[in-house]
């Protein structure tokens, strides 16, 4: 292969971020997205919408715990995970404002603490924990409002920083566009709404709340489609890497299965019967969101260094 004319990113080595990292990107996105949705519902919804917000809090905390575990297991020296937070030789905090991984480590820790408070409050509100004071960690209590606002901001960060982390490298595709953070954030929102719609197919969630969530997901899916097209355009000549099985997976798995079919099911629920339409659309959105991360991560990992 003639290397002359290749972009500089093709002379770098892959970091071997694979399934554990893909899993983190997906589950971390769900944690952030579900928390954001829960906060939005708590602040702007009606009282009858609150059970759905509770569902968001109940998803977010376990998802953060799983995310942290995936990240730690992926380290080549997992026992040194704390080196992300503390300088191992001085014990002072280790924090770099210009390293997305450093920022992300701290954000995950703080977000984890906030989701725990919201999780406990959610358990209390459904009667699983009998400690009334826990209700203060959820709106409308003033402490709960502070927790929710801070948690919501960190949730947005967790949902999007992973794409920025990939962009702040020198690998093909990842560092050939500044739009990965945007795309990951939108995908986190769409998959989170889909997961909540899927889990809210039970009797005790108000139908109108779930319909609002479905409508939100449809809007986000349109936004996601536009963002993916912008992502491909922003890659320029590097987009040729997706003239491959990865590109086919992106078009079929992410765009058609994960976006267009769910939108069609939203638009015409009777296509496959109204009973199952929303649930199937939600499952497809989740599959598409996962495949999007698979395509982004593995298509770059598959580019071996030249030279």
């Amino acid at each position: 292969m003639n290397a002359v004319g290749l972009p500089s990113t093709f002379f770098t080595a892959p970091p071997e971020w694979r399934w554990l990292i893909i899993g983190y990107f997906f589950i971390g996105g769900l944690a952030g997205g579900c928390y954001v949705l829960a906060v939005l519902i708590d602040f702007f919804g009606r009282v009858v919408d609150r059970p759905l917000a509770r569902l968001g809090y109940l998803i977010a905390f376990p998802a953060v715990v799983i995310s942290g575990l995936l990240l730690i297991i992926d380290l080549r020296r997992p026992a040194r995970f704390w080196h992300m937070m503390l300088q191992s030789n001085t014990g002072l905090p280790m924090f770099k404002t210009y390293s997305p991984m450093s920022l992300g480590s701290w954000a995950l820790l703080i977000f984890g603490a906030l989701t725990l408070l919201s999780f406990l409050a959610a358990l209390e509100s459904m009667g699983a924990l009998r400690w009334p004071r826990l209700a203060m960690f959820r709106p409308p209590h003033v402490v709960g409002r502070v927790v929710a606002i801070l948690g919501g901001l960190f949730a947005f960060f967790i949902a999007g920083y992973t794409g920025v982390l990939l962009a702040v490298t020198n690998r093909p595709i990842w560092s050939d566009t500044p739009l990965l953070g945007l795309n990951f954030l939108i995908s986190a929102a769409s998959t989170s709404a889909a997961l909540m719609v899927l889990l809210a197919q039970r009797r005790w969630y108000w139908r109108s709340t779930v319909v609002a969530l479905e409508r939100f997901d449809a809007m986000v899916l349109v936004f996601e489609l536009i963002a993916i097209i912008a992502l491909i355009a922003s890659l320029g000549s590097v987009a040729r890497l997706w003239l491959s099985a990865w590109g086919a997976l992106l078009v079929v798995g992410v765009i058609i299965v994960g976006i267009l079919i769910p939108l069609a099911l939203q638009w015409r629920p009777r296509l496959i019967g109204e009973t199952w339409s929303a649930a199937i659309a939600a499952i497809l959105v989740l599959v598409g969101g996962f495949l999007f991360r698979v395509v982004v991560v593995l298509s770059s990992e598959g580019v071996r260094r030249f030279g």
Partner: protein
Amino acid sequence: MSEPMGFFTDTTVCIGCKACEVACKEWNQLPATNGGVNTLSGDSYDNTRHLDGLHWRHVKFVEQFNADRTDGRWLLMSDVCKHCVRAGCMEVCPTGAIIRTEFDTVVIQSDVCNGCRDCIAACPFGVIGINPVSNVAQKCTLCYDRMRTGLEPACSKACPTDSINFGTIADLKKMAEARVGQLHERGEKRAYLYGADEKMLGGLNSFFLLVDKPEVYGLPPDPKLPSRHLTPGSLWSTLGAIVIGLMGLFSFRDRGAAAADALEEERDERRRTA
């Protein structure tokens, strides 16, 4: 801080003996085989193939032959970490394991690194790799331990043709410019320096004299810092967060009279079915 130190590698006098590779492995106690396995490339005299956590020096064999192999040449280059003045690996390292030494070189502290591998993706030259023995990211230290005691790095000490030159950056630049001038005088007009000036990542403390395009040697033509996307990537994400926040607000806010009616109907239905 002592004066910045580094390497000037004159590829035109490299004979591909690999003494530098062997000396590096011996001094740094790097295993000769990968997990006890000898891997042969099968299509080249170069079986090392690239720099990584076990190979901190690599003699590249650039074999340029025509289709019937009646004409050709070998370009040989002893590659190594560039010890960039503005180092991408240092930028992204979340543990502070990668430091700049008093010699202006870049060193990974093995006892601090936790193997996150962000530096591998960030290095514009594909220099860093995980050492499967220590399970941390490793690369050339420019023999920091030898320099501390006034010794020359093992690779340049072992180089029999002075292709690898070690010294202060100021002295090396003078030497390199003189060598380029000499080659130009002798008719080798293609000779030029790669990474000697500050335009490339603030300057490479390991720079090279090449006689073909960088890509031919497996070097990036325009290496950049990973942080170039930090601000634009963050701004685009923030914009996305605002749009999604507004979508959520419009979806879940008081959904008007129609929604209220729907809610009332739903309540009635629940009462009926309860």
